[in-house]
């Protein structure tokens, strides 16, 4: 299934400037794997060897996936995955 992925400003150089892209898979981890195929380099910005990078938060709709089932969190077609990294500026 395909869901909407919202990409923060910091990562849009990897998505040709697109704020929203489509991701395919049945879990958050599979969505990220699919994103990597379509937008090479994005997976490394989100994950490290231990899982989700410490300064990045992934929200499935309104919920941080770290409070769900992490990368194994199941997704459905109507879901939106939002990437929220630490930002600075003002």
């Amino acid at each position, binding site marked *: 299934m395909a869901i909407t992925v919202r990409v*923060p*400003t*910091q990562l849009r150089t990897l998505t040709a400037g697109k704020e929203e892209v489509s991701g395919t898979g049945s879990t958050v981890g599979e969505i990220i794997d699919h994103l990597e195929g379509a937008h090479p380099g994005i997976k490394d910005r989100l994950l490290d060897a231990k899982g989700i*990078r*410490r*300064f990045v*938060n992934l*929200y499935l709709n*309104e*919920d*941080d996936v770290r409070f769900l089932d992490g990368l194994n969190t199941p997704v459905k077609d109507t879901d939106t995955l939002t990437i*929220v*990294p*630490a*930002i*600075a*500026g*003002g």
Partner: protein
Amino acid sequence: MSPIVAVIGVGGLGCPAALALAEAGVALRLIDEDSVERSNLHRQVLFTDADVGRRKVEAARDAIAKIAPGARVETRAEHLVPESAEELLRGVSAIVEGSDNLPTKFLTADVAAGLRVPVVHGACVAWHGTVLPVSWGDGACYRCVFEELPDEEMTNCAIAGVYGPVTSVIGALMAADALRLLRGDRSTAGNLARYDGWRQTFRSTRFPRRQGCPLCGER
């Protein structure tokens, strides 16, 4: 004695936050080493063209004095660095942190934890902004949510740009959270609020304290 709030970074966030707090009768300690640049003026609402080249803390102090006569404003024209951060922040009742770089955000969190002073973190890039109020012992702190400093360069507003209305919204929210914390209301502590000024959406997610957090763990 009125409470005193430290404002770290007198920029797009610090200007509206400082003004709102001063108007509410809160004394301020403004901390920023930078001088006003013309490129700041579209979002740093306390400054005018005549202020270009002046220290931000001094220009902000003078602007606040005109708008809120009698407001108590201290100025510290220096960056927050590990060697002096604790001295700069000692004695304040709360901290409003709107700095433009991640190392200062993490340093503020670390020092505030040691002093047990509540802190409101704010940030903006392009059309997006976030606010995280922290009250030690109630909900998450900055290192609970963003555990450690990224080892790569992250985009900031100097690269991606930032829109003036968004910084004013986030700065006002920071001031509101600071006032709530000063009143002892911790109901929003640990809530990461995210504002998207382009889509006109506002979301808030409550984070619990993270087990093993170096700041929130056993002391």
